[in-house]
C-alpha cells in the first residue's frame, strides 16, 4: 500500500507538472488575448511528433531543442496570420478558428504519421531504472521529465516576476491599452507570448511522447482536461493553474491505480435484482471512473465556486 502511495504520488506529480507546462501557456494566452486556444493540445501533439521525427533524423537531444522552436514558430504564425485577422470578428470567431485548427492539425498528423501509435522511444542515455522503491524500478526518464518541468517552471516564474519582459507581459495581461500607450508593441508581445506558450506545449510533447503514447488522438484526449484545469484553477490565474494541475494530476493518477469498487467495499448486490443503473455504479472500479473524475470536479467547482479556485473575475 505504501509502495502504491509513493509511486502514485511521484507519477501524479509528474502528470501534474506536465499539465502545468500546458495549462500555464493556455491560461496566460487566455488572460492576455481573451482567446481560449483550442489548438493548444494540438501544439503539444505536434511537439511529440516533431520530437519523434527529429529524434529519428538528428537524435533526441537536438530534437528536444528544435521541436519546441518549430512548434513555437508555428504558434507565432497562427497568431500573426490567423488570430490577428480574425480578431475583428470577435471572440467566438477566434475560438472557432482555433477549433478548426485543432481539427485540421489532428487530420494532418494522422495523414503524415498514420492513426496508430508511433514508436517514439526513451533515449538510450536515460533508459535505466533511477532507483528502486520497495519492489518497483522507477525509470530515470520519468525523473528527467520531472526535472525538466520543474526547471521550466522556475525559469518561467523568474522571467515573469524578475525581468523587464515579464513586467511588460504582466502589465499587458491586465492593461493592454496602457502598455500600448507607453510605446510597447502590444501586437508583437501577443505574438511572442503565443509563440512561447506554444513552445512550452511543444516541450511537454517532446518529453511526454516517449513516456506516454504518441498518436494522432493524443490532443483530443488531453485538450478537454486542460480546459478543466484552467477553469478549475480560475481563468487567467497562474497559481490557480499550478494548483489545479497538481490536484488533477494526483487525483487522476491515484484513481487509475486504485482498483476498489462499491461492490468490493460493501459486498455484491443481490443478483436476483438483475442489471440496472445501480449495479453498473455498484460494480464500476475507481480505475474505470478515472477518466470522468476531472469533469466531475469541473461540475462541482462550477456549482460551489464558479470563478475557480484562485480566479478573481467572472468572464
Amino acid at each position, binding site marked *: 500500500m505504501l509502495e502504491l502511495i509513493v509511486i502514485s504520488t511521484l507519477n501524479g506529480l509528474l502528470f501534474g507538472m506536465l499539465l502545468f507546462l500546458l495549462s500555464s501557456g493556455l491560461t496566460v494566452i487566455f488572460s492576455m488575448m481573451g482567446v481560449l486556444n483550442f489548438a493548444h493540445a494540438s501544439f503539444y501533439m505536434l511537439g511529440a511528433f516533431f520530437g519523434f521525427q527529429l529524434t529519428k533524423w538528428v537524435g533526441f537531444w537536438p530534437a528536444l531543442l528544435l521541436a519546441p522552436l518549430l512548434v513555437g514558430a508555428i504558434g507565432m504564425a497562427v497568431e500573426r496570420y490567423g488570430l490577428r485577422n480574425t480578431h475583428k470578428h470577435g471572440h467566438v470567431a477566434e475560438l472557432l478558428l482555433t477549433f478548426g485548427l485543432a481539427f485540421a492539425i489532428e487530420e494532418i498528423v494522422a495523414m503524415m504519421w498514420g492513426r496508430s501509435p508511433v514508436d517514439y522511444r526513451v533515449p538510450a542515455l536515460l533508459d535505466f531504472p533511477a532507483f528502486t522503491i520497495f519492489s518497483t524500478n522507477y525509470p530515470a526518464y520519468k525523473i528527467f521529465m520531472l526535472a525538466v518541468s520543474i526547471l521550466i517552471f522556475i525559469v518561467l516564474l523568474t522571467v515573469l516576476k524578475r525581468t523587464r519582459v515579464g513586467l511588460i507581459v504582466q502589465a499587458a495581461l491586465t492593461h493592454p491599452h496602457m502598455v500600448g500607450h507607453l510605446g510597447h508593441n502590444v501586437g508583437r508581445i501577443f505574438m511572442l507570448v503565443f509563440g512561447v506558450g506554444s513552445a512550452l506545449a511543444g516541450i511537454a510533447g517532446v518529453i511526454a511522447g516517449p513516456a506516454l503514447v504518441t498518436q494522432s488522438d493524443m490532443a483530443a484526449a488531453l485538450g478537454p482536461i486542460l*480546459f478543466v484545469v484552467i477553469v478549475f484553477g480560475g481563468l487567467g490565474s497562474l497559481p490557480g493553474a499550478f494548483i489545479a494541475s497538481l490536484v488533477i494530476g494526483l487525483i487522476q493518477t491515484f484513481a487509475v491505480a486504485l482498483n476498489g469498487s462499491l461492490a468490493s467495499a460493501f459486498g455484491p448486490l443481490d443478483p436476483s435484482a438483475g442489471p440496472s443503473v445501480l449495479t453498473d455504479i455498484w460494480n464500476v472500479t475507481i480505475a474505470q471512473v478515472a477518466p470522468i473524475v476531472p469533469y466531475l470536479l469541473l461540475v462541482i467547482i462550477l456549482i460551489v465556486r464558479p470563478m475557480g479556485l484562485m480566479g478573481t473575475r467572472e468572464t
Partner: protein
Amino acid sequence: MSAKTISTSTIAERSVGDGLRFYGIWLAGIAVLIVLPLIFSSGGSLTSFSLIGIAIVFALSYNILLGQTGLLSFGHAVHYGLGGFAACHMMNAVVSHGWPIPLPFIPLFGGLGGLAFAIIIGWVMTKRAGTVFSMISLGIAELVASSSLILRSVFGGESGISTDRTALPKILGLSFGPQLQVYYLIAFWLVISAIAMYALTRTPLGRISNAVRDNPERVQFIGYDPHVVRYIAFCFAGFFAGVAGGLAAINFEIANAAYLGAIQSGLVLFSTFIGGVAFFFGPILGAILVTYLQLGLTSVTGVWQLYFGIIFIGIVMLSPGGIAGLIMMHRPLVRAKTLPTVIPSYLLAAVPTLALACGVILTIESIARTHSGQGSPINLFGVAFSPASPVTWASAAILVAGGFFVARLSWRRVGEAWDRAATVARDRGYLA
C-alpha cells in the same frame, strides 16, 4: 434619397408581396421534400435524404444556441445522443409493454430525453456565457460520453442499444419498414420542427434571446435575467436536438455512444457555422452541404475530414457569416439591380481560385496517398495524376503558388467592383 420617395401604397403592396413570398418559400420547401424521392428513388439517395433531413433538424436546433442566443456549445451532441437513447428505449418499451404508441410519435420522446438533460444540467451551464460556457459544454460532453461507457445497462456499452422500428403498432397501415416511409416520417418531423423553430425566433423569447446575445447588460437593465433567458433557449435547443436524435434512432434502429461523442458535436458546429448563423436558412444550407460532402467525399478520399477542417477555417477567416451571409450580402445589389457589374469580376476571380483549390487538393492527396502507401492515381477533373511522380508535385506547386498569386490580384478586383456596386446600391436607397 430615393428611399423617402417610396409611398405608403407601395409599402402596403410590398408587405402583401412579402407575405406571399414568405409562405411561398415554406410551401416550396414542403413541395420539394414531397417530390424529391419521386425523382431520385434509388435506395442510396433515399438514405442520403434521410440523413440530410436529420442533420437539418439538428443544425437548426444548434442555431437556437449559437445564432440566436450567442452560446457556442461544444457538446450539443449530448442532447442528440440522449434523445436517440430515449427514443430507442421508448421503442423497446412500447413493444414489450404493448403500449398503443405508433412510430411517428417516437421522436417526441427523443425530444423529451434531450430536454430532460437540458433541464437538469442547463441551469449550471448557462450561468455564464461566452468562452466559459464553451469550455463547460466541452467538459459536460466529455463527462456524458465517458459515463455512457460505464452505465452499460442504459447505454449498452460499446455496441449500443438496438431496436426494431417495424415492431411498433401500425398507423394508417404503415409498417415503416421501407426507407421511403422512414424518409417521409423524417420529412414530416423536419417540417414540424423547422416551423416550430422559426416561430420561436419570432416570439418575444426569441427576440430577448437575440438581445442577450448582443448585450446582456442592457437586457438586465430592462428587467430580464439573461441567465434565465439562456437557460430557456438551452432547453429548447436540447429538445429539438433530442428530436433529431430520435429520428436518427428510428433511421438506424440503433443508438450508441458515438451519437453523443465529440465528433458529432463538431459536425453540427461545422454545419451550422459553414451554413451561416445569422439567418434561419443558414444551418439548413450547411447541414445539406456538410452531409452531402461527408457522404460524397468518403468514397473519393481518405482524408475528407481534413477538407472539412480547411473549409471551416476558410469560412471562419474569410466569411464569418457563412454561406448564407455571402448570399444575403447580394440582396441589396439585386434590389438595386447593380449585381451585373460585379459578376464579371467574380468570373475572372473564379479561374485562379479554382486553380489554387486544385493545387491544394493535389498537394494533400499526393501527401496522403504517398504516406498511406496506396499510390492510387488522383483523378482530378478527368486527369489522372500519379501521387509519386515529380510531375504531380511540380504541377501542385505551380497551381498553389501561381493560383495564389493571381487569385490575390483578382480578389482585389472583386473587392473594388463590389465597393462600387454597393455604393451605387446605397445611393439608390438599398442599405448594404
